[in-house]
């Protein structure tokens, strides 16, 4: 039982990282049907920026977080304008490639700016392991878990209760109709991309003490997060968190009881299975939204 709890909880802590990143895919997809395929690299930029601010410049994490999020928001505005909107406007799907190209550029720039060696960033909440009965967790893992849950509550509130959130949903439903209702669809598209970038910055800020600062830190994480967003359904932010946590726990249990080599085979097979049975994802409602 102790073994079960330890591997499941360690897995859930990793799953929270996936969930935190995966929500970014849903943000842009819901408004414009665009996916930032390089989201993992944006997470990396957030992480590397955090490293510069905290480990090199000695800024406190509380101050570094807004700097990172605002920087990535601005970067998101620029990237959307340059690499997504021109293709979207022309009705082309080339943004698939151009978002990836931006990500590859990020990796190369990161190598030039920060070098290639993995460097540590100290945990924001201490590194003394926490013991909950027989279970051991790192404080940073618990912080990530808490942040992920808080973020999803905020998003839920944003979508349901705020005017801007409702505008987001309206544009998601039909950009044209929303425009006719006086919503600036273009602005919403731009904002959703930039907010997704900013949240990637938050994810990078949160995970970098666990993953080490290095230009490849987000690549695989972004891929797994993508699988989770697909499993949950791109239109269901709450489902994405749950799927992330469940996926993490599953990974931990597969590694613990079976074999690490089987983990990704089972994980990605699950994604294909879900796509097969429920193409819209486990948590997405099939156009059930009231018009």
């Amino acid at each position, binding site marked *: 039982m102790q073994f079960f709890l330890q591997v499941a909880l360690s897995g859930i802590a990793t799953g929270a990282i996936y969930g935190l990143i995966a929500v970014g895919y849903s943000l842009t997809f819901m408004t414009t049907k665009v996916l930032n395929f390089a989201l993992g690299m944006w997470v990396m930029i957030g992480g590397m920026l955090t490293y510069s601010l905290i480990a090199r410049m000695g800024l406190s994490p509380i101050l570094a977080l807004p700097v990172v999020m605002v920087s990535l928001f601005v970067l998101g505005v620029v990237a959307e304008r340059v690499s997504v909107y021109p293709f979207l406007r022309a009705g082309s799907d080339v943004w698939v490639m151009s978002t990836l190209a931006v990500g590859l550029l990020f990796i190369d720039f990161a190598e030039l700016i920060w070098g290639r060696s993995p*460097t*540590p960033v100290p945990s924001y909440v201490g590194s003394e*392991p926490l013991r909950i009965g027989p279970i051991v967790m790192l404080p940073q893992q618990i912080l990530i878990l808490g942040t992920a849950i808080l973020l999803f509550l905020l998003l839920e509130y944003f979508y349901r209760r705020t005017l801007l959130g409702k505008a987001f949903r309206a544009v998601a439903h039909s950009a044209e109709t929303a425009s006719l209702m006086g919503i600036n669809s273009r602005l919403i598209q731009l904002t959703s991309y930039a907010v997704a970038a900013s949240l990637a910055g938050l994810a990078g800020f949160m995970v970098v003490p666990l993953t080490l600062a290095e230009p490849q830190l987000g690549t*695989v994480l972004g891929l797994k997060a993508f699988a989770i967003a697909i499993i949950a359904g791109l239109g269901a932010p709450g489902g994405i968190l749950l799927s992330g946590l469940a996926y993490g726990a599953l990974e931990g249990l597969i590694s*613990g009881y079976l*074999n*690490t080599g089987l983990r*990704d085979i089972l994980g990605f097979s699950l994604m294909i299975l879900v796509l097969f049975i429920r193409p819209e994802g486990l948590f997405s409602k099939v156009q059930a939204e009231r018009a």
Partner: protein
Amino acid sequence: MAKITRRTALAAFGSAITTPMLRLPAFAQFGPIRIGYAGALTGPAAFTGVDIRRGGELAIADINSRGGIKGRMLELVARDDEHNPVRTVAQYRELVEREGVVAMLGATNSASMLAVAPIVNDTLKVPVIMPATDATAITENEAAKAGRDNFLFRVGMYGTGQGNFMVDTAVKKLGFTKIGLLNWTGGWGVTGRGELNRRLRELGLTPVADETFDSSDTDMTPQLIKLKNAGAQCILNYALVRENTFVVQTKQKLGDTTPYISGWGIAGPAFWVAAGKAAEGVLTSSTITIDGPQSPERLALLQKYQTTFKAPMEAPYSVFGAYDAIFLFAEVMSRDGIDPAAIRKGLENVPTFKGLVKQYDRPVFTKDRHNALTEDDMIMCRWTEGKLLEITYDAGKPTVATDVRTRRTLDPTDLHLL
């Protein structure tokens, strides 16, 4: 802006057609003797690739300052293969056929060297000395097996030897019988896992657990608990800095003090930078360490590296290996000339050599042994307070020298300092 006259136009035309000609092999005899290098100068493996180039450049600077090879200067022509075998192959051709290099420093990726080995032996026919790539099959290649001329030589770690050395150290020197394995599923980890299993089998042992992890694992809790529950007294590992950092961080989190022995992927300062105190007590096999007492020759090179590049040395085995490789080439070229075939033959006939990785009082290479370093030349080191200290055995007990005067014995069960 200068006006283009007929004369300048003619001069420009003239230099445009003659400059490329100077690069042709036929003209090479008037210029410097060129040594080639293709390896990762960007990307995750660049820490070792750049250090190979730097080691080569420092050696060439030293040789040139003493007058070069019979008055001719040496020159290093480097290419970035991005750790990609396809690029390595193309660049080897380019370096030999267009740049006219007469010898090469080996790449950073074993897969690259496995890909170029048959081309080097059958077509290009230039000698290569490798400081970093450890796959056994690179030197024990088809040409070697068929008794043809083998152009590939190694001054770094070689795979089979390292596998033997790690297992033998754990079993014979440190006395562990229940060995657990924890390896990376990336290329190097896979071959390493094979070597460890092979050696354990040869000694009549089976690992009590044979765990793996991949590059996306940042938390190794399940694997480490399984190893502990299986009763592993000691864990053997092949992985690089990043993955090993996650292993030791998780070990620290779990309060797991099981001895941990890794291959030479973490035998450089980068590991301590990444893992910090969590790396304390980790053992790693290596061919060289720049911590602890050093010879004056090594100290001089460390000093030169600092003043030339103003950066910390990330891969000592690459710097010192490349340095030795260039000096080996130089010694043979001064004696046997600069024909690539003659250099190759000459390398098999260097009776003694004062290298910086090792001082050889036996032939560095022979016709049948293209690995300069054997298992007996490998060293086991322990990460101790930020330093990689060589373990020596005092009446059978493992010890490390924490400073000039103090030798401290390691606890036989968990290898902490007594």
